[in-house]
């Protein structure tokens, strides 16, 4: 489906970040366009992706949601290729295509049989330069995005809480607003805003092409040079200088909304994965929450039976410091205060005494295995390379696993003591509101 918004995918974080040495080849065109190619010949398929270094982090208050709306507009046609032709062209070739927007980046991808993988190259080069943004098309697509926002957030109580928690966590950094944008901002976005955003950020010097699959990199590079080489570099990309102010105490937000079960979500401010503590935070998340043998599941779901589900995870693949998240859905009839207490008890336990050697080893094994298993999918490999490249650099993929291997039980305890504290914490609670009667 066109236009995915990247909300942190809490449960699979280790799967996504798990990586070690991949035989990636890097090329740089004169206009600043970077190309990363990973040949993988196990099946006759390939993915072509182009990632732009622009996301909601690059927006201004009052104009939130601009990056994501522009992503939708990228499917609306150019001077060369008419409206509605992009997906049809790809699908006619038996392919699928899609796009996603996050806080830090916007990505477009196609998946095809490898004998057709050059098809999207001209199309992507075309829409990097020749997009048409008519007033009618913008207004209509704005309506589509407001429907998307209703679907994802307004009518989804737990997503609504996530949005509130992020807004309270980040007071003066753009990570505080949602990728899809505030509803009132969406209604004001106009063609001029989009044209300006497009001209500023959609240029070869702000983009990275990633190709994974059954390709010959010489041939692909030749085609990429032909299609993209003549596009002039754009002006330098504006730097985002916001640094989140220091927090002085716990923040709490409440959401009263029609819902069945109470829910809690807690965010702790943490550094990104380029900081040495990132590895231990990743292992901490795994020990707390990965699988039925994890601490949180065992305590809250299995033993005490006060939660329907519980999870935690480190969100380290961001340009700027982001969050470690933990949350739980209360079981029916259980108080959210008791669920919160149980969640915090588990966090306190790991601060006081380091996890067992077995627990640390399990987390490391899970990371390593998930990396190997991810190679089953060319799409997942490309997503991993892209996510690293947009945030901490793709070469970090190679050092990531070494970093995980260095983590000791004491490191896990230490980072819990350092970051999972009130001064860095924002908590959101969902209180189910009384329901209207149905007919």
């Amino acid at each position, binding site marked *: 489906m*066109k236009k995915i918004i990247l909300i942190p995918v809490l449960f699979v974080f280790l799967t996504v970040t798990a990586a070690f040495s991949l035989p990636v080849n890097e090329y740089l065109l004169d206009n600043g366009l970077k190309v990363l190619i990973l040949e993988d010949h196990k099946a006759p398929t390939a993915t072509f992706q182009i990632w732009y270094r622009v996301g909601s982090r690059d927006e201004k208050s009052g104009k939130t949601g601009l990056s994501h709306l522009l992503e939708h507009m990228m499917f609306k046609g150019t001077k060369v290729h008419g409206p509605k032709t992009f997906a049809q062209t790809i699908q006619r070739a038996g392919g699928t295509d899609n796009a996603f927007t996050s806080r830090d980046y916007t990505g477009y991808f196609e998946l095809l049989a490898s004998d057709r993988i050059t098809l999207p190259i001209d199309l992507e080069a075309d829409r990097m330069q020749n997009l048409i943004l008519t007033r009618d098309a913008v207004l209509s697509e704005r309506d589509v995005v407001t429907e998307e926002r209703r679907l994802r957030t*307004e*009518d989804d109580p737990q997503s609504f809480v996530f949005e509130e928690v992020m807004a309270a966590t980040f007071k003066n950094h753009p990570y505080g607003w949602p990728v899809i944008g505030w509803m009132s901002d969406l209604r004001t976005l106009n063609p001029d805003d989009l044209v300006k955003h497009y001209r500023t950020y959609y240029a070869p010097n702000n983009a990275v092409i990633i190709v994974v699959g059954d390709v010959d990199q010489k041939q692909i590079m030749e085609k990429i040079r032909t299609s993209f080489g003549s596009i002039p570099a754009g002006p330098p990309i504006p730097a985002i200088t916001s640094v989140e102010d220091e927090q002085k105490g716990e923040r709490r937000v409440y959401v009263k909304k029609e819902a069945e*079960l109470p829910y809690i979500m807690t965010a702790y401010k943490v550094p990104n994965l380029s900081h040495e503590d990132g590895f231990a935070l990743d292992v901490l998340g795994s020990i707390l929450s990965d699988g039925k043998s994890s601490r949180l599941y065992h305590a809250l779901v299995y033993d005490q039976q006060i939660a329907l589900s519980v999870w935690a995870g480190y969100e380290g693949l961001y340009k700027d410091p982001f969050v470690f998240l933990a949350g739980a859905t209360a079981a029916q009839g259980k108080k959210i205060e008791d669920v919160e207490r149980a969640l915090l008890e588990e966090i306190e336990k790991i601060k006081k005494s380091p996890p067992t050697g077995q627990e640390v080893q399990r987390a490391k094994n899970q990371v390593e295995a998930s990396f190997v298993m991810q190679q089953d999918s060319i799409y997942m490999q490309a997503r991993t390379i892209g996510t690293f490249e947009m945030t901490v650099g793709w070469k970090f993929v190679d050092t990531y696993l070494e970093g995980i291997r260095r983590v000791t039980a004491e490191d896990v305890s230490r980072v819990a003591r350092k970051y999972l504290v009130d001064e860095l914490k924002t908590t959101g609670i969902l209180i189910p509101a009384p329901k209207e009667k*149905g*007919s």
Partner: protein
Amino acid sequence: MHRVINIITTTFILLLSLAAPVAAAKLAERETLSNGMVVLHTERHSVPMVSIVMAIRTGSIADPSAKAGLAYLTAALLSEGTQKRTSREISEAIEFVGGSLSASAGADYTTVSLTVLKKDIELGLDLLSDIVLHPAFPEEEIMRKKRITLNWLIQQNEEPGAVASIAFSRAIFGAHPYGRQVQGTVETIPAINQQDLVDFHRGYFAPNNAIVSVVGDIGRDELKQLLGRYFSDWKQKEIPEHVLPAIAQNKSSTVLKINKDLTQANIILGHLGIARVDPDYYAVTVMNYILGGGGFASRLMDNIRDNRGLAYDVHTYFTANRYSGSFQAGLQTKNESANTAIAEVIKEMERMRTEQVSDRELEDAKSYLTGSFPLRIDSNSKIAGFNLAVEYYSLGLDYIDRYPAIINAITKEDILRVARKYLDPANYVLVVVGNLQKADLKY
């Protein structure tokens, strides 16, 4: 987020997971072991891992109506304790090596899935065979799983799409098991006891009722040896027949309105469809691609999303199960637009029945359906699922070679014929979950 992506993905999978042909090479080796277990094997050494999916030919179709959820709970409890391992020991063992082992029931069949690194294949098969052959169904674990299932069912009410979908299935399938959620209901789950689970397992879990699909870094000899070690004690037995009630065709439209404090109306409009084994399945697949299954290439997406800006997600699909199926069009739009969107859905269904599709539409649909096959079978997990479906629906291992010809033979007349036969814009079930005051439905 997951929900929306899943809706779209599901659309394509339903249409196409069985529609994936491959070039002439045989995709899998098939063998029936002496105890009756069918083994499908695709050797792939590119990644040091093995994926195994075992299917048992039973699911919620075997549930008594007062004990709906029985197949689901039986599957869910397989990994919660065996005669020699506790629940915790099972999860510790598989998670320590970074593998996964899970079981779940569907309507037609139950699957047990294992993914492990090549080096852990013995441990994986040991655990898989232990949970399938010797589950203990401990009382304490049954209580836990029932409580979690009840909570999950309650939480479903928070998801407007789930609320609509449950109401829709119940309305079109009535007392047939396809009309119920696989997970049962808050009324039926408490009625299920340990003896029910033991009996269900004893009745249906047998090698002659099982298909094992193995894909990955394992050779034929090694696989044979390991299957011999872990499954040779599994004895054949007689399997009870599934006794299913008849399904009544709707003779008029039914409108179900469910009021909730939502900003969008969640709409499903549809009726009975076809079974997977119906020869019209392929013409229906092409027709549905054009109507609402083909993403941005479909008429409904073009009309309702691209031209009118009324919805983010709009789709149609035929869920084709073994014994029957359903057709549904689904979308979400702000309450105030519900009437317009419903009218457009009905209009597009009607147009499909009255006008021939264009040459271009037909060619595009065919070229997608036949040209996308390499993507449907380019990973171990996709191949494992594909092989299983080919076996379960008796499509034959040459299905992948026959598929392009089947699709390419479909004509505009075929499309019109199946549209008239399988789309009914006059007799449908319409479900709307939303703010009914704002929606002010004309239906």
